[in-house]
Every structure is written in structure tokens, then in C-alpha cells.
């Protein structure tokens, strides 16, 4: 069996609409949750203030490497901009 008949037989349209709706609802809920997160964290901060731990990434080797990469990216962007201006 194929064609529209097979789609109807396998309840394809219902499955597609339900599946798409579930994906949308799940991601919509995650969107709402993320949008609310900063507000929730503000309240949480009053009860459970954020503490600096020895494991924070800021002072690690990785952060130095990241800083270097960011610096390189900024330098490239500046160079590119300068070149563009010169070519105009």
C-alpha cells in the first residue's frame, strides 16, 4: 500500500501533528524556563548566595588559553575591518 491511503492507514497526519506539537511544547517550556531563570536566581541569591569555589574556571590554565583565543579573534576582526576600510 502507498500514497494517501498508506498515510491514512498508518495515521500519519495525526502522528506528524502530535509529534511536532510535543517537540514544540517541550522547547517552548525550556524557553519559558530559561526566560524565568535570571529572576529565579535573583530570589535564590537571597537564600543561597553564590560562593567562590576553588574549582572556578576564571583562574585556571584554560581561562588563560581562552583569553589568548579571544585576543586573537579581536585582532583578526580589527585587521579585517581595517582592510575593508582601506579597500573602500
Amino acid at each position, binding site marked *: *500500500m*502507498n*500514497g*494517501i491511503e*498508506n*498515510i491514512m492507514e*498508518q495515521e*500519519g*497526519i495525526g*502522528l*506528524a*501533528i*502530535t*509529534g*511536532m506539537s*510535543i*517537540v*514544540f*511544547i*517541550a*522547547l*517552548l*517550556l*525550556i*524557553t*519559558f*524556563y*530559561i*526566560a524565568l*531563570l*535570571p529572576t529565579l*536566581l535573583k530570589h*535564590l541569591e537571597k537564600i543561597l548566595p*553564590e560562593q567562590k*569555589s576553588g*574549582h*572556578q*574556571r576564571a583562574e585556571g590554565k*584554560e581561562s588563560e588559553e581562552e583569553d589568548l583565543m579571544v585576543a586573537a579573534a579581536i585582532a583578526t576582526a580589527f585587521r*579585517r*575591518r581595517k582592510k*575593508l576600510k582601506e579597500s573602500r
Partner: protein
Amino acid sequence: MDLLISFLETTGFAQMTWGNAVMILVGLVFIYLAITKDYEPLLLVPIGMGAVVGNIPSVESMALGVYDDGSVLQYIYFGVSNGIYPPLIFLGIGAMTDFSTMLSNPKLILLGAAAQIGIFLTLLGALFLGFTGPEAGAIGIIGGADGPTAIFLSAKLAPHLLGAIAIAAYSYMALVPVLQPPVMYLLTSKKERLIRMKPPRQVSQREKIIFPIAGFLIAALIAPGSLTLVGMLFFGNLLKESCVTERLANSARNAMVDIVTILLGFSVGASTQADNFLTPQSLKIFGLGALSFIVATAGGILFAKFMNLFLKDKINPLVGAAGVSAVPDSARVVQMVGQKEDPENFLLMHAMAPNVAGVLGSAIGAGVLWSVLVGG
């Protein structure tokens, strides 16, 4: 003399079929594209070499191929046929993914949801062409543009189509820079392509730590079928963001994901033996796969345009194309197309948000299809 003749009859040359030759050629084309065009080399080289290895004909009494009981390749393929490798790859992806851009601009997540229309319209297309429900579900997931998810779901719903689906998914992922731009140009005006978006806000470490736990709970409670993939994705991300398990995160995103990619790519390639792979069904799957990528790209772009009707800070609709989850290739394509119009417009960071949301969306979609279609 008889011994020599019987030996010659067992050689690959004597047993080679035209199908084997075609598949070896396909494998070589993959290797060529990976090396010269840089199309997904980490995947196409193992898959291509696997296809070459898998299509060398062997003597029936010798257990050599992935489908021969007790062969070494069958043990390696076990991770594919039982859906073990994809969650491990998701663990690695989680450990290398930075959700900051998504957390800083959550409305972009919806573009990742909209692009999943590719999955469900392809499912309808597959049913139209006469596939059964579970087969159509497994084919539809190609539209999620996520190789591991496609393999995971095919292993569960239609193991006999796994080779064709995996090859189609990975081939089209490699072809994202070719498939997406025409759709992007067709559906957007120059003015829209020039839209500059607000830079993302700074996201606190606390947000990054809480997100994988809460995100997992929401996704898995709504679609428990996605538990394995989403669970591993968020577990990997928690390892990365918690800052206390840096060693584990490093292993997950480097050594482990590399090992699993090698085993998965090679055994998927080796599973494309001509007699299983060169069928009219495979041709249909390839056609549907191409269509699914185009539909998914269009879905993301059109939804971005729809959202712009209501938003004060407009979204560049090109970013919607990154809703297909081919990470990070589709985000790179968005950046490339955007910069052709305006070299000073940097869309990459914005595009990463729907891109990672697309990974989540396709994993949830796979979970839904698995729970509904299993045993169908």
C-alpha cells in the same frame, strides 16, 4: 593445481559483483570529498573506508562481514545495531557544547523547534512512498540533521534500513554548505539578510550549571523516549559546566568521542554491503533525505520571519536555517551567507542558539517517534 584454482575462486576478484564495485567507488568518493573538499572529514573518512572494507566479498564459511555471526566487525557493529554509540556521542557533544548563547536569547530556541518540521513532513513523504510506520519514522529523523539520532532511532525502529539512513544522514550533513544557501537566498530578501542582532548577554555560571538539570527534567518528562539521548547530552554538559569534573569532561569531549566516532563511522560504512544497500528503497531514502534537509531549513527561516512580525528586536531570518541540528556546520553556513551581504555582521554566535536547540528538538522528536512507533 586444483588447490590453486579453488584458492583463486575464493579471492575477492573472483567474487566481486558490480554492486560491490559501485559501493567501493562510493566509499572512495567519500574519502575524496573528505580530504579534498573538507566535507565532514571526521565522519566521511571512517565511513568511506568502512564501505571499502565492507564490500570486499569473502568466502561464505568465513565470518568477516558485519552481518556474519562471530566476526570482529559484527562485535564492533554491535554498538550501532543496539544504539550504544549514539548516546556516547551525545555525552561528548554535551561536554563540548556551550549553551550560553541559547541561555542569553531563549526565543531563538523556537527556531530549533520549527526546523523539526523536516522530520515530520519527511515521515509523511515516506508513508506516501509505501514505507511502514516504523520505517517512515526512522527515515523521517534524517530531517533532524543529526547523525547519531538517526542511527539511534533506525536501530530501534528499522534496523534493516540503518545503513542507508545513516549514510543519507551523514552525507547530507556533509553537504549542508551546498544544500542550505539556495534555500536561504530563496526565502529571504537582501534587507532581511542585513539585519544585525543584539549581542548576547553575559550568562552566569550558576545559570549554566542549573540549565542541564532543569532542561533534562523538562525534556525527559515530556518525552521519556528521548531520555537516553537527552540525558547523555545534558550529563556531558553538566560535567563541563560544574567546573569540578574537568577531567571527565575532557575525556568525554576528546578521547571518548573520538574513539566512538571511529567505531561508529567505520562499522556504519562496513554495513553498506551491496546486497543490503543497493536497493530501490535506498534510492527513495536518499531522495527523502535531501527533501527533509530542504524542508527543515525552510521551516526555520520561515518561522524566524513569522516571529519578526511580533518582535521589536528583529531576528535575522538566516539564523533560522541553523535550526537544523547539524552542529556547527549549519551555524557556519549562516555566518558565511550573512557575511557575504555584510562582512561586519557576525551571526555565528546567534546561530549557535537554534543550532543546539535543534539537537535537543531532534532528540525529543526521536523519543516521540520511538515511543509511538515501536512494535508498530
